[in-house]
C-alpha cells in the first residue's frame, strides 16, 4: 500500500473518534451505580510536592459525605480534585482515576467546563458576583444554554432560591446587589446559584466556617433538605457539624514522609455513626476525641 492510498483510505473511512464525554445519566452497562462519584488510587501533586496519596473513595448518591481531618491533610485538595477546580492552581496535577458517570474526568477528552457544569461548588467564603441577586442565580443557567423563556427563567430562579431557603428574604429585592445581603444570606445565595444549574453533585468547602452559629445552623438544615435531590460532599473543620449532617465520613491524616513532605492520606472511611462511635483506627479515635489536631 502506497502512502497515497493509505491517505485515501483514511479520508474515505475516517477512524471512529471516541468522544469520551460524560453521559447525562448513568449508563445501565456501568455496574457501579451506587456511587455518585468515586476516586481510584488518586494522588494529587502540586509541582513535585505530593499533597494527598492513595485516595480510594466512593461517594454515595443522595447522601452527605463529610471529609474531616487536621489542617494540611489535603481534604480540600481532594474536594477540589472532584470537579477539576485544582486545574486553576499552576502546577497542580492529579494521578489515578476520578470516575463520574462511568467516565474518568481526567481523561484528556473531557472538558473541565462540562465536569464543573455537573458538579457544582460552594466555597468557604461567600463569593456572590457583584451583580443583582437575580443575575447571580440566573447566570449559571444562562451560560449553560438554558432554553426556557423569561418566565421559565424566573421560575428557575425562584425554585433555586426556595431550595436554598432564601426566597422569602429576597423575593422583594431581586434587583439588589448580591453584596447587600448578610454573610449567611450570601452563602445561601451561592448555594442557590450552584443548584440553579441543576448539578448532580454539590461540593462544599467549609461552607459555614465564615458564618455565625445561627447562619451555620440554617446552612446545615439546608444541606439536609438538599440531599434528597443532590449528592453533597462537604469539607469541614467542625466535627460536630460532620456528626450532625453527614451520612458517611472520611477521615484524613497527614504524615511526614521520608523526603520531608507532609503528605495527606485517607485513614478511615465509614458511616458517620460508626466513625464517631466505634472508629477502627487509633488515629481516628485520637482525632475525634480531641487528642490532636
Amino acid at each position, binding site marked *: 500500500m502506497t502512502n497515497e492510498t493509505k491517505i485515501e483510505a483514511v479520508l474515505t473511512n475516517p477512524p471512529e473518534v471516541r468522544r469520551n464525554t460524560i453521559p447525562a445519566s448513568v449508563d445501565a452497562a456501568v455496574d457501579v451505580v451506587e456511587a455518585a462519584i468515586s476516586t481510584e488510587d488518586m494522588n494529587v501533586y502540586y509541582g513535585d510536592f505530593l499533597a494527598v496519596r492513595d485516595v480510594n473513595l466512593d461517594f454515595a448518591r443522595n447522601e452527605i459525605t463529610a471529609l474531616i481531618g487536621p489542617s494540611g491533610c489535603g481534604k480540600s485538595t481532594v474536594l477540589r480534585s472532584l470537579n477539576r477546580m485544582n486545574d486553576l492552581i499552576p502546577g497542580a496535577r492529579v494521578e489515578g482515576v476520578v470516575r463520574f458517570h462511568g467516565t474518568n474526568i481526567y481523561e484528556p477528552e473531557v472538558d473541565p467546563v462540562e465536569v464543573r457544569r455537573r458538579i457544582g461548588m460552594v466555597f468557604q467564603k461567600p463569593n456572590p458576583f457583584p451583580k443583582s441577586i437575580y443575575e447571580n442565580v440566573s447566570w449559571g443557567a444562562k451560560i449553560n444554554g438554558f432554553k426556557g423563556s423569561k418566565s421559565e427563567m424566573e421560575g428557575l430562579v425562584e425554585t433555586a432560591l426556595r431550595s436554598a431557603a432564601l426566597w422569602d428574604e429576597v423575593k422583594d429585592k431581586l434587583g439588589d446587589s448580591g453584596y447587600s445581603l448578610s454573610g449567611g444570606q450570601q452563602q445561601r445565595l451561592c448555594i442557590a446559584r450552584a443548584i440553579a444549574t441543576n448539578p448532580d453533585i454539590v461540593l462544599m468547602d467549609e461552607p459555614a466556617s465564615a458564618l455565625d452559629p445561627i447562619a451555620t445552623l440554617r446552612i446545615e438544615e439546608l444541606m439536609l433538605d438538599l440531599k434528597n435531590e443532590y449528592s453533597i460532599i462537604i469539607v469541614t473543620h467542625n466535627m460536630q457539624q460532620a456528626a450532625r449532617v453527614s451520612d458517611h465520613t472520611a477521615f484524613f491524616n497527614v504524615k511526614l514522609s521520608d523526603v520531608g513532605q507532609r503528605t495527606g492520606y485517607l485513614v478511615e472511611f465509614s458511616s458517620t455513626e460508626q466513625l464517631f462511635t466505634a472508629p477502627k483506627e487509633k488515629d481516628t479515635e485520637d482525632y*475525634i476525641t480531641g487528642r490532636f489536631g
Partner: protein
Amino acid sequence: MSRPVPVLELDSKDYSDLFPEGEDLQRQIGARRRREGWARIIFLLVLLLTILALATLLYTIINGAFGMTAIVNAVEPEEIVESLGYDPAQVGLADLSQEELVEVLAGAVTNNVGRRLERDQRFFEDRLVFESEATWIEICASPEPPTGCALAPRDQSNILQLVNERVVVPDVVQTWDLVESITDREAIEAEIASADFQERHPGAQPEFRAWLNWQFVTSPQSDVPELAGVRTAILGSLWLMAITVLFAFPVGVAAAIYLEEFAKPNRVNRLIQTNINNLAGVPSIIYGMLGLAILVRALEPLTSGSLFLGEGQGVSENGRTILAAGLTLGLLILPVMIISSQEALRAVPNSLRAAGLALGATKWQTIRKHILPVAMPGILTGSILALARALGETAPLVVVGASTFITVDPTGPFSKFTALPIQIYQWTARPQQEFQNIAAAAILVLLILLLTLNATAVILRNRYSRSKM
C-alpha cells in the same frame, strides 16, 4: 468528647523584668515618639517643597499669560469706523458688516495681497473683489486650482481678523508681567505716556491684555503673536488623543487579559512580561524614531491615506499625519496601559474567578461578565494617567514630523497636524517677548485641557463603578 488539658513545658525563667518599666518605659516610648515626629516633619517638608514647586510653575505661567502691554496700531480702529461715517463711541470694528469690512480691507492692502487672499478663500459667494471673473475661471480650471475655488466664502469674523491683521496691525511693543501690572500700573502707564517712550513708539497706548482669551483659543496659528491662536493645535491634540485611545486602550486591555488570565507562567511569557516592563521605561524619543521608521516611512501608503483615498488624494502627501503620530503615541503608552490593566485584573479576588468557573462557565465568560467589570475602574484610572502623559509628549511628535506652522484645521486622521506641546515648544524658542506670553497662555490651555480630560474620565469611572457594585 472531652478534650484533655494540654500540658505545656514552660521555661521556668521569668523574662518580665527584662522589659522597661516606669521611667524607663516613659523614656523608651518618648524616644520612639520623637523618631515618629522627625519622620512626620520630613514628610511634611517634602510635601511643602512639591507644592512650592508646583505653585512656582503656575505663578510663572499665569504671570506670563496676563499683563500690561504697550500697543501701537498702524491705523486706529476708531479712525476706520469714523471714516465709514459711524460714531466711534457706539460702533466698534466688530460691529461692521461683511461688505464694509471688505471695503476697508480693499482700501488698505495692495492688489497682489488681495488676490492672494481671495485665491485662498473667496470674500463673497456671488462676486469677486480682487480677481476678474475670466482669470478666476481660468485658474480654477488649471491642474492645481487654489483652495478658494472649492472652499465656502469667508465669514464676517474671518474678514474681521484679516482687517485686524492687515489694516489695524496692532503691534505690542513692550509687555509687562502680571505682578508688575497690578502693583505698578500707574508707573507703567506713566512710562508709556512719557515723551521718551512716545518718541521711540509713536502713538503707543497702554492696554491690559489677557493673552489667554477666547480669540486666542479660537484663532489659527499666525506670524503675528498678537493674532496667533491655538485652535489648530487644540484640534490636533484632540485628534491625536482620539487615535491614541482607540488604538492603545483595546490593544492594551486585550494584552493584559491574555497575560494575566490565559498565559501560563512559562519562560516565553515571562520574557514577554519582562520586556513590557522594560518598554515602559524607554525614552519617548525612541518611540518617535520607531514611529518615523515604521509608521511614517514603511507604512506610508497606510498612514498618508493614499491607500484608502487614492494616490495624491490624501490631505497630506506623506506619512506625517495624525494617524502616524497617534499610533506612535499609542505605542508609547501601550506598556503603561498593559501594566496598569494587569494590576487592576490582579486586584480582582480569585474567589470571583472560582465562582464563575465552578458554575461551568468558560474562562472568557467569567472574565467578560465578572472580572472585567470589577477591574474596569482600575483599568480606566491607569488609562487616564497614560493618556495624560501622551497629551503632553513633545519629543516623539517632533521626530514623527508634526508641522510647526499650520493654519488649516485638521479634518481627519490623514491630515497634517500640530499639537499643543509642539506649539508651546516652538513659541518658547522664539526670541520676541510676545511669543513667550502666548506660550504661557498655550500652556494654560494645555493644563485646562488635561484637567478636563481627567475630570471627564474620573466622573466616567465613578459612574461605572457605582453602577456595577
